[in-house]
């Protein structure tokens, strides 16, 4: 679960990390009154999860509440990139002298949290990581040790931060951010830029927070935000019934349904190898019932790009007879695009028997992944 900038900043403030003074605009009611709560000039920022907002015109300066209000009216509720703007963050402009980068995420080698810092923050941080990797400081935190003073000293030393006041502020921010990262089951907490202002204070000018989806359940405040998160139509449909839906390729025309992401990936690989393109994929997870299989097919079939559906199952905890019943049910209820079904594993025989007995014209049976990929391509022609 990715948080909006303003949500991340609410968490930052709760943990004592300073952000520019701001108001959140979620409706045009009392707009000018709301906007009068901060000083100007300020920045009006659309709240969407996509990156590159600035370049795409999603961040604009305003010299007065009136100007901010006009900007807000032109932004709120409008489309921005692939999202609809449901909120704006209007922040006082700050007087910066430097832009740092600070993030905490999981290091996949050591499986420890890693603090990433650079004195060269800002929008070009990825180029810097690529071309000047020595400007990126990494400090691993062994969870058995926890974040200690020596980590913070090492960070400041490696980053060559000499100003004691900045060192102290940075240490406090890293401590707070680490605590937030751990407390909130974060996958990523990122401040880019972490601005050094003319008055020698550090302030978080942006906030990227991503939470482990598996752990959202234990954070009541996130659960509340989660249900208001923007999703595509299909993602929303899938989420409502607890499936994982993924858009794969805008040019694809095959929808893939399977019972596990490994199999999904293999299906995508096979279709690509045979010369096809997958549009989207849906993971049923383990142990799906006939009813749920039918639901999954209905969601994928809603995607107008999908011309064929491949259902590839290798049943362990999932039973093939349930899959077959679900396919037939969906077929009879909504007459979807052609389906290629490939069933193996638990109760495979019953499943195949059900499909053969049903003998529906649009349901093709395949006997291996390659066979399935071939039949899908033929059906999509």
């Amino acid at each position, binding site marked *: 679960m990715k948080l909006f900038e303003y949500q991340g900043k609410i968490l930052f403030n709760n943990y004592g990390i300073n952000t520019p003074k701001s108001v959140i605009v979620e409706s045009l009611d009392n707009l000018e009154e709301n906007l009068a709560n901060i000083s100007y000039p300020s920045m009006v920022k659309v709240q969407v999860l996509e990156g590159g907002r600035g370049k795409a015109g999603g961040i604009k300066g305003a010299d007065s509440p009136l100007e901010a209000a006009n900007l807000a009216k032109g932004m709120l509720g409008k489309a921005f990139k692939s999202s609809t703007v449901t909120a704006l963050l209007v922040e006082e402009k700050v007087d910066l002298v430097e832009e740092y980068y600070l993030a905490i995420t*999981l290091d*996949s*080698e050591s*499986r*420890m*949290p890693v603090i990433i810092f650079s004195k060269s923050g800002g929008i070009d941080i*990825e180029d810097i*990581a690529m071309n000047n990797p020595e400007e990126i400081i990494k400090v691993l935190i*062994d*969870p*058995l040790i926890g974040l200690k003073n020596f980590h913070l000293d090492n960070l400041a030393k490696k980053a060559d931060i000499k100003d004691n006041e900045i060192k102290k502020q940075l240490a406090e921010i890293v401590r707070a951010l680490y605590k937030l990262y*751990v407390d909130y*089951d974060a*996958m990523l907490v990122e401040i880019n830029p972490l601005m050094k202002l003319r008055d020698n204070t550090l302030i978080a000018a942006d906030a990227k927070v991503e939470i*482990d*989806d*598996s*752990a959202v*359940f*234990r954070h009541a405040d996130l659960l509340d935000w989660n249900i208001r998160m923007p999703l595509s139509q299909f993602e929303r449909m899938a989420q409502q019934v607890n499936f*994982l839906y*993924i*858009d*794969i*390729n805008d040019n694809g025309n095959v929808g893939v349904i*399977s*019972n*596990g*992401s*490994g*199999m*999904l*990936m*293999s299906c*995508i*690989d*096979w*279709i*690509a*190898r045979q010369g096809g393109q*997958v549009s989207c994929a849906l*993971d049923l*997870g*383990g*142990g799906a019932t006939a009813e749920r299989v039918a639901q999954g097919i209905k969601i994928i079939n809603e995607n107008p790009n999908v011309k064929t559906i491949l259902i590839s*199952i*290798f*049943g*362990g*905890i999932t039973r093939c007879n349930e899959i077959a019943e679900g396919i037939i049910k969906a077929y009879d209820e909504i007459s979807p695009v052609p389906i290629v079904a490939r069933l*193996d*594993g*638990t109760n495979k025989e019953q499943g195949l028997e059900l499909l053969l007995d049903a003998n529906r014209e649009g349901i093709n049976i395949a006997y*291996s*992944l*390659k066979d399935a990929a071939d039949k899908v391509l033929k059906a999509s022609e």
Partner: protein
Amino acid sequence: MSILIDKSTRLLVQGITGREGHFHTARMLEYGSNVVAGVTPGKGGTQIEGVPVFDSVEEAIKETKAKAAVLFVPPKFTYGALLESMAAGIKLVVTIAEGVPIKDMRQIFHLNRAMDDVFVVGPNSFGVISPGKAKAGFMDHNIYIEGPVGLMSRSATNSYETVNEMTKQGIGQSTCIGIGGDVIPGSSFSKFLPLFEQDEQTKAIVMIGEIGGVDEEFAAEYIKNNVSKPVIAYIAGRNAPKGKKMGHAGAIISASGAGSAQNKIAALSAAGVQIAESPAHVVELLKKVL
């Protein structure tokens, strides 16, 4: 031989009174697994499929000398159940649950460094099976036959696919391990490679990896220096969208290219591992080395 489990392994089932726990206890018993105890707090004193149920792992161990545990508990209770088993002295813990919080597994992973004789398999694992001997998990055991191939897989479905193909062609398995596709599995390829290398029954090793993480790269490093048996690897996700989350949160391709299918294949190839193009291709390659 086989590794991790066999007929004599004294197995306990955490969450035995749940729907899945009960169902798969019956199937494990049917397969010949030595299920000696179940644990569900508050249900101590009852029986499931003739297996005595205890309130705690400690009590179950005291009464039945259980050495391995398989967890059929919901993801939000997995952390507590894992800690309980590890603290009580269980040496192999197999975790089935999908959706265990990453922070929980991070703690388990690092705790495991202090208990290096403990094997944590999963979460999000189909389990462990030594065909013809015993299983701890929910895999459809009918597709497995006893034989010389040790298999480890991050994906359940791809491992079934591969095993099924092997069995069809008469190639059996020594032990098959579902590593699980999570960001932080309790144990990965490298932890099991030394066991397969030493196991007399195992003549060849199959690794089924996927994009994300660096476990395949670590395995390559280990294989280069320590493994004499032939190793065959299949890496899923070559055509998966970059940066998209594939359910297995592990399947995130990092920006730098580390964790990509290309990287993994290059590292494994350099270590002398043969790369299969598909589950079916794994079997073709196996035929040449057995």
